[in-house]
Protein backbone atom coordinates (compact mmCIF):
# COMPACT_ATOMS: atom_id res chain seq x y z
CA UNK A 1 0.00 0.00 0.00
CA UNK A 2 2.73 2.43 1.02
CA UNK A 3 4.75 1.48 -2.01
CA UNK A 4 1.77 2.24 -4.22
CA UNK A 5 1.22 5.64 -2.60
CA UNK A 6 4.87 6.49 -3.04
CA UNK A 7 4.66 5.44 -6.66
CA UNK A 8 1.62 7.60 -7.23
CA UNK A 9 3.32 10.55 -5.56
CA UNK A 10 6.37 10.10 -7.76
CA UNK A 11 4.15 9.95 -10.81
CA UNK A 12 2.28 13.06 -9.77
CA UNK A 13 5.50 14.96 -9.15
CA UNK A 14 6.89 13.88 -12.48
CA UNK A 15 3.67 14.93 -14.14
CA UNK A 16 3.75 18.31 -12.44
CA UNK A 17 7.35 18.88 -13.45
CA UNK A 18 6.60 17.92 -17.02
CA UNK A 19 3.52 20.08 -17.10
CA UNK A 20 5.31 23.00 -15.47
CA UNK A 21 7.79 23.09 -18.26
CA UNK A 22 4.96 23.46 -20.78
CA UNK A 23 2.62 25.83 -18.97
CA UNK A 24 0.77 27.75 -21.66
CA UNK A 25 1.53 31.37 -22.41
CA UNK A 26 -1.88 33.00 -22.58
CA UNK A 27 -3.17 36.30 -23.91
CA UNK A 28 -2.93 39.05 -21.30
CA UNK A 29 -6.33 40.17 -20.02
CA UNK A 30 -7.68 43.67 -20.29
CA UNK A 31 -8.62 45.49 -17.10
CA UNK A 32 -7.08 45.76 -13.68
CA UNK A 33 -8.09 42.54 -12.01
CA UNK A 34 -10.44 39.61 -12.31
CA UNK A 35 -13.74 39.26 -10.44
CA UNK A 36 -12.02 36.81 -8.08
CA UNK A 37 -8.37 36.13 -7.39
CA UNK A 38 -6.61 33.95 -9.91
CA UNK A 39 -6.39 30.86 -7.74
CA UNK A 40 -10.11 30.93 -6.97
CA UNK A 41 -10.95 31.45 -10.62
CA UNK A 42 -8.73 28.60 -11.76
CA UNK A 43 -10.36 26.26 -9.32
CA UNK A 44 -13.98 27.42 -9.37
CA UNK A 45 -14.79 29.40 -12.51
CA UNK A 46 -16.92 26.58 -13.86
CA UNK A 47 -18.98 26.52 -10.68
CA UNK A 48 -19.45 30.29 -10.75
CA UNK A 49 -20.56 30.14 -14.37
CA UNK A 50 -22.83 27.22 -13.79
CA UNK A 51 -24.52 28.92 -10.87
CA UNK A 52 -24.84 32.18 -12.75
CA UNK A 53 -26.28 30.56 -15.85
CA UNK A 54 -29.28 29.27 -13.92
CA UNK A 55 -29.77 32.61 -12.19
CA UNK A 56 -29.70 34.50 -15.47
CA UNK A 57 -31.57 32.09 -17.73
CA UNK A 58 -34.35 31.08 -15.37
CA UNK A 59 -34.73 34.05 -13.04
CA UNK A 60 -33.64 36.75 -15.44
CA UNK A 61 -30.98 38.18 -13.14
CA UNK A 62 -28.63 40.40 -15.13
CA UNK A 63 -25.42 42.24 -14.40
CA UNK A 64 -24.13 39.63 -12.00
CA UNK A 65 -20.55 39.31 -10.94
CA UNK A 66 -19.78 36.10 -12.82
CA UNK A 67 -20.76 36.04 -16.44
CA UNK A 68 -19.31 34.20 -19.39
CA UNK A 69 -19.72 37.29 -21.56
CA UNK A 70 -17.66 39.15 -18.96
CA UNK A 71 -14.89 36.53 -19.22
CA UNK A 72 -14.79 36.95 -22.99
CA UNK A 73 -14.75 40.75 -22.89
CA UNK A 74 -11.64 40.82 -20.65
CA UNK A 75 -9.73 37.78 -21.79
CA UNK A 76 -10.16 37.99 -25.55
CA UNK A 77 -7.15 38.31 -27.79
CA UNK A 78 -6.37 41.95 -28.52
CA UNK A 79 -6.19 41.44 -32.27
CA UNK A 80 -9.10 39.15 -33.12
CA UNK A 81 -11.20 39.63 -30.00
CA UNK A 82 -11.56 35.89 -29.44
CA UNK A 83 -10.90 33.46 -26.60
CA UNK A 84 -10.47 30.55 -29.00
CA UNK A 85 -8.32 30.04 -32.05
CA UNK A 86 -4.79 29.17 -30.97
CA UNK A 87 -2.91 27.70 -27.99
CA UNK A 88 -2.32 31.23 -26.70
CA UNK A 89 -5.99 32.22 -26.76
CA UNK A 90 -7.12 32.36 -23.18
CA UNK A 91 -9.86 29.74 -22.84
CA UNK A 92 -8.60 27.33 -25.48
CA UNK A 93 -5.00 27.53 -24.31
CA UNK A 94 -5.71 26.66 -20.71
CA UNK A 95 -8.33 24.04 -21.44
CA UNK A 96 -5.99 22.29 -23.87
CA UNK A 97 -3.27 22.41 -21.24
CA UNK A 98 -5.57 21.01 -18.57
CA UNK A 99 -7.08 18.51 -21.05
CA UNK A 100 -10.63 19.54 -20.15
CA UNK A 101 -13.27 19.63 -22.84
CA UNK A 102 -14.52 23.16 -23.43
CA UNK A 103 -18.00 23.16 -24.86
CA UNK A 104 -19.34 26.59 -23.79
CA UNK A 105 -18.49 28.03 -27.17
CA UNK A 106 -20.36 25.48 -29.22
CA UNK A 107 -23.27 27.79 -28.43
CA UNK A 108 -21.90 30.92 -26.75
CA UNK A 109 -20.11 33.66 -28.65
CA UNK A 110 -16.35 33.26 -28.34
CA UNK A 111 -15.66 36.83 -29.50
CA UNK A 112 -16.20 40.19 -27.90
CA UNK A 113 -19.19 42.31 -28.84
CA UNK A 114 -16.85 44.67 -30.66
CA UNK A 115 -15.41 41.83 -32.70
CA UNK A 116 -18.90 40.62 -33.60
CA UNK A 117 -19.88 44.10 -34.72
CA UNK A 118 -16.78 44.37 -36.89
CA UNK A 119 -17.55 41.08 -38.50
CA UNK A 120 -21.12 42.08 -39.02
CA UNK A 121 -19.96 45.19 -40.89
CA UNK A 122 -17.77 43.18 -43.23
CA UNK A 123 -20.22 40.44 -44.12
CA UNK A 124 -23.81 41.56 -43.71
Amino acid at each position, binding site marked *: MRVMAAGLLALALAGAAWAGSRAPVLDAPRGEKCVEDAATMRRSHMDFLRHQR*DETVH*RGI*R*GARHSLAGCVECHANAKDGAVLGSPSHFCQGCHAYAAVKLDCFE*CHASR*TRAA*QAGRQARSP
Partner: protein
Amino acid sequence: MNPIDTSRRAFLGRTAAFAGVALAPGVLLYEFAAAREAGQEASAAVRWGMLVDTTRCASGCTACVDACNAEHGVPKASRPTDAQWIRKVELKDLRTGAVRSAPVMCQHCAEPPCVDVCPTGASFKRADGIVLVDRHTCIGCRYCMMACPYKARSFVHEPTTGQKTDTPRGKGCVESCNLCAHRVDRGEKPACVDACSAAGHRAIVFGDLNDPSSEIALRVRSVATSQLRADLRTDNGVRYQGL
Protein backbone atom coordinates in the same frame (compact mmCIF):
# COMPACT_ATOMS: atom_id res chain seq x y z
CA MET B 1 -41.53 29.34 -7.83
CA ASN B 2 -39.53 31.94 -5.99
CA PRO B 3 -41.15 34.22 -3.48
CA ILE B 4 -40.78 37.72 -4.84
CA ASP B 5 -41.14 41.05 -3.16
CA THR B 6 -43.77 42.18 -5.61
CA SER B 7 -44.90 45.35 -3.89
CA ARG B 8 -41.54 47.04 -4.21
CA ARG B 9 -41.13 45.71 -7.73
CA ALA B 10 -44.52 46.98 -8.76
CA PHE B 11 -43.75 50.39 -7.32
CA LEU B 12 -40.51 50.58 -9.28
CA GLY B 13 -42.36 49.49 -12.38
CA ARG B 14 -45.02 52.15 -12.00
CA THR B 15 -42.59 54.98 -11.46
CA ALA B 16 -40.60 53.97 -14.50
CA ALA B 17 -43.63 53.27 -16.64
CA PHE B 18 -45.19 56.09 -18.50
CA ALA B 19 -42.27 58.32 -18.67
CA GLY B 20 -43.79 58.85 -22.08
CA VAL B 21 -41.42 61.15 -23.88
CA ALA B 22 -41.43 62.81 -27.24
CA LEU B 23 -37.98 62.02 -28.58
CA ALA B 24 -38.30 63.53 -32.01
CA PRO B 25 -40.97 65.56 -33.71
CA GLY B 26 -43.86 63.32 -34.65
CA VAL B 27 -42.46 60.26 -32.92
CA LEU B 28 -43.78 59.37 -29.52
CA LEU B 29 -42.06 56.55 -27.77
CA TYR B 30 -43.63 55.00 -24.74
CA GLU B 31 -41.02 54.02 -22.22
CA PHE B 32 -42.66 51.07 -20.51
CA ALA B 33 -40.09 50.30 -17.87
CA ALA B 34 -36.57 51.09 -16.90
CA ALA B 35 -33.91 48.44 -17.06
CA ARG B 36 -34.13 46.03 -14.20
CA GLU B 37 -31.41 46.69 -11.70
CA ALA B 38 -28.47 44.33 -11.57
CA GLY B 39 -29.24 41.37 -9.34
CA GLN B 40 -33.00 41.74 -9.61
CA GLU B 41 -34.97 38.87 -11.02
CA ALA B 42 -37.82 38.99 -13.49
CA SER B 43 -41.05 39.93 -11.76
CA ALA B 44 -44.28 37.98 -11.83
CA ALA B 45 -46.12 41.29 -11.54
CA VAL B 46 -45.18 41.93 -15.18
CA ARG B 47 -46.64 40.13 -18.19
CA TRP B 48 -44.77 41.08 -21.31
CA GLY B 49 -46.84 40.97 -24.45
CA MET B 50 -47.10 42.22 -27.99
CA LEU B 51 -49.98 43.47 -30.06
CA VAL B 52 -49.70 42.99 -33.81
CA ASP B 53 -51.93 45.34 -35.79
CA THR B 54 -52.53 43.45 -39.03
CA THR B 55 -54.11 46.52 -40.61
CA ARG B 56 -50.77 48.33 -40.36
CA CYS B 57 -48.50 45.39 -41.17
CA ALA B 58 -47.35 45.77 -44.77
CA SER B 59 -47.48 42.79 -47.09
CA GLY B 60 -44.02 41.89 -48.31
CA CYS B 61 -42.24 43.94 -45.65
CA THR B 62 -39.76 41.81 -43.70
CA ALA B 63 -38.21 44.48 -41.49
CA CYS B 64 -39.11 42.55 -38.33
CA VAL B 65 -37.69 39.29 -39.66
CA ASP B 66 -34.45 40.89 -40.81
CA ALA B 67 -34.02 42.72 -37.52
CA CYS B 68 -34.58 39.49 -35.59
CA ASN B 69 -32.01 37.65 -37.68
CA ALA B 70 -29.46 40.41 -37.16
CA GLU B 71 -30.16 40.72 -33.44
CA HIS B 72 -29.81 37.03 -32.72
CA GLY B 73 -27.24 36.01 -35.31
CA VAL B 74 -29.70 33.66 -37.01
CA PRO B 75 -28.95 33.23 -40.73
CA LYS B 76 -31.78 33.92 -43.15
CA ALA B 77 -33.86 30.76 -43.50
CA SER B 78 -34.36 29.04 -46.83
CA ARG B 79 -34.43 25.29 -46.22
CA PRO B 80 -36.84 23.24 -44.05
CA THR B 81 -33.95 22.60 -41.69
CA ASP B 82 -33.12 26.28 -41.15
CA ALA B 83 -34.16 27.94 -37.92
CA GLN B 84 -36.76 30.66 -38.11
CA TRP B 85 -37.70 32.69 -35.05
CA ILE B 86 -40.19 34.99 -36.70
CA ARG B 87 -41.86 34.76 -40.08
CA LYS B 88 -44.18 36.88 -42.13
CA VAL B 89 -47.45 35.13 -42.98
CA GLU B 90 -49.65 36.36 -45.81
CA LEU B 91 -53.32 35.67 -45.13
CA LYS B 92 -56.35 35.63 -47.36
CA ASP B 93 -59.82 35.38 -45.88
CA LEU B 94 -61.41 32.36 -47.54
CA ARG B 95 -64.90 33.92 -47.56
CA THR B 96 -64.35 37.60 -48.27
CA GLY B 97 -60.99 37.51 -50.01
CA ALA B 98 -59.66 40.16 -47.63
CA VAL B 99 -55.87 40.11 -47.47
CA ARG B 100 -53.82 40.48 -44.30
CA SER B 101 -50.20 40.21 -43.38
CA ALA B 102 -48.77 39.45 -39.97
CA PRO B 103 -45.59 38.32 -38.28
CA VAL B 104 -45.83 35.07 -36.34
CA MET B 105 -43.38 34.16 -33.64
CA CYS B 106 -43.47 32.44 -30.26
CA GLN B 107 -46.77 33.54 -28.77
CA HIS B 108 -45.45 33.44 -25.19
CA CYS B 109 -48.47 31.57 -23.88
CA ALA B 110 -49.53 31.76 -20.26
CA GLU B 111 -50.22 28.01 -20.54
CA PRO B 112 -47.51 26.96 -22.96
CA PRO B 113 -47.87 23.40 -24.33
CA CYS B 114 -44.12 23.33 -25.00
CA VAL B 115 -43.40 23.80 -21.29
CA ASP B 116 -45.89 21.09 -20.37
CA VAL B 117 -44.36 18.44 -22.58
CA CYS B 118 -40.65 19.16 -22.07
CA PRO B 119 -39.25 16.10 -20.25
CA THR B 120 -36.34 17.94 -18.61
CA GLY B 121 -37.93 21.29 -17.87
CA ALA B 122 -35.59 23.01 -20.33
CA SER B 123 -38.62 24.65 -21.88
CA PHE B 124 -39.87 27.06 -19.25
CA LYS B 125 -41.77 30.27 -18.65
CA ARG B 126 -40.00 33.11 -16.91
CA ALA B 127 -41.84 34.93 -14.13
CA ASP B 128 -42.62 37.84 -16.46
CA GLY B 129 -44.28 35.56 -19.02
CA ILE B 130 -41.41 35.08 -21.48
CA VAL B 131 -41.23 31.48 -22.71
CA LEU B 132 -37.64 30.32 -23.13
CA VAL B 133 -35.52 27.26 -23.80
CA ASP B 134 -32.68 26.63 -21.37
CA ARG B 135 -30.24 25.17 -23.83
CA HIS B 136 -28.10 23.83 -21.03
CA THR B 137 -30.74 21.23 -20.27
CA CYS B 138 -32.40 20.82 -23.68
CA ILE B 139 -31.70 17.28 -24.93
CA GLY B 140 -33.05 17.93 -28.41
CA CYS B 141 -36.03 15.54 -28.30
CA ARG B 142 -38.21 18.05 -30.21
CA TYR B 143 -41.37 17.13 -28.31
CA CYS B 144 -41.97 20.87 -27.76
CA MET B 145 -42.01 21.35 -31.52
CA MET B 146 -44.65 18.64 -31.79
CA ALA B 147 -46.69 20.36 -29.10
CA CYS B 148 -46.43 23.98 -30.25
CA PRO B 149 -49.62 25.06 -32.04
CA TYR B 150 -47.83 27.92 -33.84
CA LYS B 151 -44.82 26.27 -35.45
CA ALA B 152 -42.83 28.81 -33.47
CA ARG B 153 -39.91 26.58 -32.60
CA SER B 154 -36.94 25.46 -34.65
CA PHE B 155 -34.38 22.77 -34.12
CA VAL B 156 -30.77 23.62 -34.86
CA HIS B 157 -29.88 20.99 -37.45
CA GLU B 158 -26.27 21.99 -38.07
CA PRO B 159 -23.25 23.35 -36.20
CA THR B 160 -23.58 27.12 -35.75
CA THR B 161 -21.08 29.93 -36.16
CA GLY B 162 -21.18 33.67 -35.64
CA GLN B 163 -23.24 33.62 -32.45
CA LYS B 164 -24.10 36.87 -30.69
CA THR B 165 -23.13 37.41 -27.08
CA ASP B 166 -26.75 37.72 -25.97
CA THR B 167 -28.03 34.80 -28.02
CA PRO B 168 -26.15 31.57 -27.53
CA ARG B 169 -27.32 28.95 -30.02
CA GLY B 170 -25.94 25.60 -31.04
CA LYS B 171 -26.50 22.33 -32.82
CA GLY B 172 -28.88 19.81 -31.31
CA CYS B 173 -31.10 22.15 -29.29
CA VAL B 174 -34.47 23.73 -29.92
CA GLU B 175 -34.81 27.49 -30.03
CA SER B 176 -37.44 30.12 -30.63
CA CYS B 177 -38.24 33.79 -30.17
CA ASN B 178 -37.16 34.81 -26.68
CA LEU B 179 -38.94 38.16 -26.86
CA CYS B 180 -35.42 39.65 -26.89
CA ALA B 181 -35.22 38.96 -23.16
CA HIS B 182 -31.77 40.60 -23.03
CA ARG B 183 -33.13 43.84 -24.52
CA VAL B 184 -36.26 43.79 -22.41
CA ASP B 185 -34.14 43.33 -19.29
CA ARG B 186 -32.19 46.42 -20.32
CA GLY B 187 -35.41 48.40 -20.67
CA GLU B 188 -35.50 48.23 -24.46
CA LYS B 189 -38.11 46.81 -26.79
CA PRO B 190 -37.64 43.66 -28.87
CA ALA B 191 -35.71 44.17 -32.09
CA CYS B 192 -38.71 43.43 -34.32
CA VAL B 193 -40.80 46.12 -32.60
CA ASP B 194 -38.16 48.79 -33.10
CA ALA B 195 -37.57 47.69 -36.69
CA CYS B 196 -41.29 47.90 -37.48
CA SER B 197 -41.39 51.43 -36.08
CA ALA B 198 -38.25 52.39 -37.97
CA ALA B 199 -39.87 51.12 -41.18
CA GLY B 200 -42.73 53.49 -40.45
CA HIS B 201 -45.43 50.89 -39.83
CA ARG B 202 -45.65 50.80 -36.07
CA ALA B 203 -47.64 47.60 -36.40
CA ILE B 204 -46.22 45.94 -33.27
CA VAL B 205 -46.80 47.35 -29.80
CA PHE B 206 -44.77 45.91 -26.96
CA GLY B 207 -45.37 46.33 -23.26
CA ASP B 208 -46.62 45.06 -19.93
CA LEU B 209 -50.13 43.65 -20.25
CA ASN B 210 -50.47 43.77 -16.47
CA ASP B 211 -49.84 47.50 -16.27
CA PRO B 212 -53.25 49.11 -16.91
CA SER B 213 -51.66 52.35 -18.09
CA SER B 214 -49.29 50.81 -20.64
CA GLU B 215 -49.99 51.44 -24.31
CA ILE B 216 -50.55 47.76 -25.00
CA ALA B 217 -53.03 47.41 -22.12
CA LEU B 218 -54.90 50.49 -23.30
CA ARG B 219 -55.07 49.16 -26.85
CA VAL B 220 -56.15 45.67 -25.80
CA ARG B 221 -58.90 47.25 -23.72
CA SER B 222 -60.16 49.61 -26.40
CA VAL B 223 -60.05 47.59 -29.64
CA ALA B 224 -61.01 44.03 -30.52
CA THR B 225 -57.94 41.81 -30.54
CA SER B 226 -57.59 38.07 -30.76
CA GLN B 227 -55.16 35.36 -29.76
CA LEU B 228 -54.17 32.71 -32.27
CA ARG B 229 -55.82 29.34 -31.62
CA ALA B 230 -57.82 30.90 -28.78
CA ASP B 231 -59.77 27.62 -28.70
CA LEU B 232 -56.78 25.99 -27.02
CA ARG B 233 -56.93 28.46 -24.10
CA THR B 234 -53.19 28.91 -24.05
CA ASP B 235 -53.71 32.63 -23.30
CA ASN B 236 -51.05 34.02 -25.58
CA GLY B 237 -48.98 37.06 -24.73
CA VAL B 238 -48.98 37.99 -28.42
CA ARG B 239 -52.28 39.38 -29.66
CA TYR B 240 -53.51 40.27 -33.12
CA GLN B 241 -55.73 43.12 -34.21
CA GLY B 242 -57.77 42.90 -37.41
CA LEU B 243 -57.93 39.13 -37.82
